[in-house]
């Protein structure tokens, strides 16, 4: 028998019941599983149902009980299994709820629709098994709707789980204050939405607060109360010297570790560490609510400006690790060391173990989700299956995704890259730019968009901030080539002279450029350079479209050229990987197929690979543990693409990015980071540089969440790690957008080892199993063979074996 005493199953918020022995992937199907009964309640259910077996209810002996709280400020204790016991064992009506509309609630949105009908118990209560008590927070209004004289209050109740009666000292009205630079800031219930679920750990009850549609003045608050005495146990304000920064997490409760430290994400608001304002942050607090550590994404300002709350989701403390994972509206998952959250790095989130775009990206079969928002609401779910652990997330307008987790990272597929930390430079270019590295700096060369089309060079230590720009007194018809070797930078270009001669110039410091050589070779396109085995290699497409290669020890004195039989309709690319030179070009065939050939010495080329992919420009190649090939596609938008593989014959996992390019892209490595440079397809043709990261690839559900908010609210049931026992339960809208609307819902069940396999859904036999209206942000509760699902239809649904 399992007890579900807190939202998402435990204080790590893993959303998994690992003691489920009755429901498995073999017996959850439309023939044997469905709705077995429902129970009427008096309001919308935002709170996840809680479950306790063997409760000595009303002194009548042990009963399995499901507890339900409503927005009408009611709490019910229903028999969890017996369809015949229709009436609750007890029902408490607490303070009157706050009926809507109310001009003081959510006024910043004009007309407030985030919550419909009334506001009462929004968060999931929590049960103290030892004390036999349940904590619940109500919201009430004394006065008329919209009256500025009205008094809004939150009350904390401590109820006897066997009778529903208030226990000693209960209820207490919630008050708090917090020191700020002007003295102290006071908690004001009127502006504060108690949405995140309650946390009980170490004898202290923690309560998180956000806002109603950003209507202020409000702040994110965490307020603590002694579970034993209901005396105040401190408070923490997220933005004491600023504003906003709500703690809502789409209902997910604060997480806590074994030491009682708290972890949570905050929403849009002031971010200024020097003034203790932490909007759009991950925050770690001590049990006494002292700030221990924090993290904010590098793009905090953009997140706040775009209302892209980091805190639309909560965090999951990954079991048996020191890591947590969480994410918000941007759809990125952040994997973070709980002992070193990482603070803020404006250049990129490279100080944390991993982050990646988890929603809104193509899936493993390379389908793109709809061009819409892919916010994460609530928190991901986690299951350590017999064949490995997974983290599940279902963002809005997206698929349910299951990402493998190896205990330390989400394993990446090299080349399944994502564009990350993109820097759009103020420079504009003709043709593609060229990137190379001297091991310390990233060098960038480009042909300027100025009328003279001058060749430019500058460097960057981080791939984001470029400086030391040198404008060479050289002009080029196309993008230049750049490489580094033997302590020297080399730039190659095709001049604007009438014959289009190929040129090479060098520099040891990137500032003084010398030893210019005008070769006796001409080309309609830009050339290519690569350095390896002590030699500088040069390749170009001649006026007959033939490919040519030659080499030099110093960039001044050149060997005889080798003219290949292969031809190209643009300039070639060169790359030196693992001791071999790779020549890259787009063929002159009508498809403009991408070609790769390799050579040990630059004179004899073998292993020609002709890809089915095509481009009007040459591709680029780099070693990222595997080969990674990047090119500009021939689709109408000229999208950037990558392929990866152990050999050039085995390139696969094509990824197509949302960014588009003119000219060929360029790849370079600096340290362990791979950079991609390209000329954007914007009217001016700005130069862009970005990190590219390997991308974890998920298994995805066969169907998308319907267009709109909020994606799927997830729960896992499994019998430990046993194969065939894991089920992902997802509650989501059947259709329509639950943002500011009440919409019908659907409950779906997936094989947790392969979420591409749906086991059952409530719409297969709608007459029997229909959900009613979707309970926004309310995950299903799975316990002892039953699935308990709240609704916005005044009822609790109970599903089980028929």
């Amino acid at each position: 028998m399992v007890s579900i005493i807190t939202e998402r199953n435990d204080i790590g918020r893993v959303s998994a019941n690992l003691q489920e022995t009755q429901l498995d992937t073999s017996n959850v199907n439309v023939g044997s599983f469905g709705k077995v009964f429902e129970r009427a309640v008096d309001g919308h259910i935002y709170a996840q149902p809680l479950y306790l077996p063997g409760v000595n209810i009303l002194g009548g002996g042990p009963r399995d009980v499901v507890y339900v709280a409503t927005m009408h400020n009611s709490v019910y204790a229903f028999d969890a299994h017996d369809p015949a016991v229709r009436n609750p064992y007890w029902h408490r009506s607490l303070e009157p709820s706050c009926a809507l509309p109310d001009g003081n609630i959510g006024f910043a949105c004009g007309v407030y629709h985030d919550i419909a009908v009334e506001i009462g118990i929004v968060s999931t209560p929590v049960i103290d098994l030892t004390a036999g008590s349940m904590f619940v927070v109500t919201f009430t209004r004394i006065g008329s709707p919209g009256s500025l004289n009205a008094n809004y209050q939150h009350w904390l109740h401590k109820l006897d789980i066997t009778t529903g009666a208030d226990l000693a000292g209960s209820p207490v009205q919630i008050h708090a204050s917090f020191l700020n630079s002007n003295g102290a800031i006071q908690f004001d219930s009127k502006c504060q939405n108690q949405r995140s679920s309650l946390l009980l750990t170490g004898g202290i009850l923690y309560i998180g607060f956000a806002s109603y549609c950003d209507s202020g003045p409000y702040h994110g608050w965490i307020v603590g109360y002694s579970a034993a005495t209901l005396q105040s146990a401190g408070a923490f304000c997220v933005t004491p010297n600023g504003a906003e920064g709500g703690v809502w997490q789409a209902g997910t409760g604060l997480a806590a570790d074994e030491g009682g430290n708290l972890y949570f994400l905050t929403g849009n608001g002031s971010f200024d560490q020097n003034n203790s304002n932490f909007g759009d942050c991950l925050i770690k607090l001590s049990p006494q609510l002292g700030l221990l550590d924090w993290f904010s994404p590098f793009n905090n300002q953009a997140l706040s400006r775009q209302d892209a709350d980091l805190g639309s989701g909560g965090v999951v403390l990954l079991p048996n690790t020191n890591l947590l994972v969480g994410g918000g509206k941007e759809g990125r998952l952040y994997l973070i060391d709980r002992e070193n959250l990482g603070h803020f790095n404006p250049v990129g989130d490279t100080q944390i173990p991993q982050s990646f775009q988890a929603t809104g990206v193509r899936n493993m079969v390379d389908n793109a989700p709809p061009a819409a928002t892919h916010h994460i609401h609530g928190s991901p779910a986690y299951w350590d299956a017999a064949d490995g652990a997974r983290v599940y997330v279902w963002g809005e307008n997206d698929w349910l995704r299951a990402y493998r987790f190896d205990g330390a990272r989400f394993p990446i597929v090299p080349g399944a890259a994502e564009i990350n930390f993109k820097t759009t430079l103020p420079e504009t270019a003709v043709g593609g730019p060229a990137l190379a590295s001297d091991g310390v700096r990233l060098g960038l060369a480009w042909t300027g968009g100025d009328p003279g089309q001058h060749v430019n060079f500058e460097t960057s230590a981080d791939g984001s901030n470029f400086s030391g720009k040198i404008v060479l007194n050289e002009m080029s018809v196309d993008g230049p080539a750049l490489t580094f070797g033997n302590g020297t930078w080399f730039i190659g270009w095709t001049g604007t002279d009438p014959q289009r001669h190929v040129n090479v110039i060098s520099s040891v410091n990137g500032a003084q450029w010398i030893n210019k050589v005008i070769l006796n070779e001409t080309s309609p396109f830009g050339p290519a350079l690569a350095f390896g085995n002590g030699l500088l290699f040069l390749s170009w497409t001649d006026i007959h479209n033939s490919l040519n290669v030659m080499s030099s020890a110093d960039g001044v004195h050149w060997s005889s050229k080798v003219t290949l039989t292969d031809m190209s309709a643009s300039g070639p690319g060169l790359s030196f990987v693992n001791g071999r030179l790779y020549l890259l070009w787009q063929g002159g065939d009508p498809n403009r197929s991408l070609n790769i050939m390799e050579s040990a010495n630059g004179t004899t080329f073998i292993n020609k690979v002709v890809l089915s992919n095509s481009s009007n420009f040459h591709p680029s190649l780099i070693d990222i543990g595997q080969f990674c090939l990047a090119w500009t596609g021939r689709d109408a938008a000229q999208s950037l693409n990558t392929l990866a593989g152990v050999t050039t014959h085995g390139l696969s996992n094509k990824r197509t990015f949302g960014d588009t390019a003119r000219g060929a892209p360029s790849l370079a490595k600096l340290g362990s980071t791979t950079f991609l440079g390209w000329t954007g397809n914007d009217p001016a043709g700005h130069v862009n540089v970005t990190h590219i990261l390997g991308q974890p690839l998920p298994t995805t559900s066969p169907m998308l969440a319907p267009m709109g908010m909020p994606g799927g609210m997830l729960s896992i049931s499994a019998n430990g790690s046993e194969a065939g026992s894991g089920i992902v339960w997802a509650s989501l809208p059947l259709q329509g957008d639950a943002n500011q609307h009440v919409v019908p819902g659907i409950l779906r069940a997936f094989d947790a080892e392969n979420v591409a396999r749906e086991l059952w859904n409530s719409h297969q036999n709608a007459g029997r199993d229909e959900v009613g209206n979707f309970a926004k942000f309310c995950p299903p509760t799975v316990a002892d063979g039953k699935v308990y699902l709240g609704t916005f239809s005044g009822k609790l649904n109970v599903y089980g074996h028929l």
Partner: protein
Amino acid sequence: MERTHYSIAERRSLNLAHEILDAVFHKGDVNRMSELIASDTVLLHHPVPGLGHDYAGFAKMVTDFHDGFSGFDVIVEHMLVRDGVAVIRWKLEGRHTGTWLDVPANGDDVSTVGLIYCECDTEQDPIRVLEHWLHFDSLGLLRQIGGLRSATPESAAE
């Protein structure tokens, strides 16, 4: 917060208008004016003639009103924001407890409706009020407290 049709700037405009209405006008905390409204903001409080369009004029209108109708209530009825202009329509309920516009207290219950209008520069952080109006039916209030004879001929109702 959940997604809304109003941008963050628009929400902040409405928040600012609401805060001026509640903190300054309703609660009478005129000291907060300098925090909420820049000193060069055009302050138009038409319900009471003869007051300057500045802090002092606004403060006098507020304190005079609190002197006349202590403990009055404001009920927010509708809010909207367009093109940087936040507007709140509200209803006022109170009792004539002190002298207002030279009319001594008569203890009568009164009610009226009003608007607050804030044109905001949302490019500033924090946003800034460029022009502020607070308007209510002062003639109707005067009529209710006996400070103004009804202009409606009795025969008009027949």
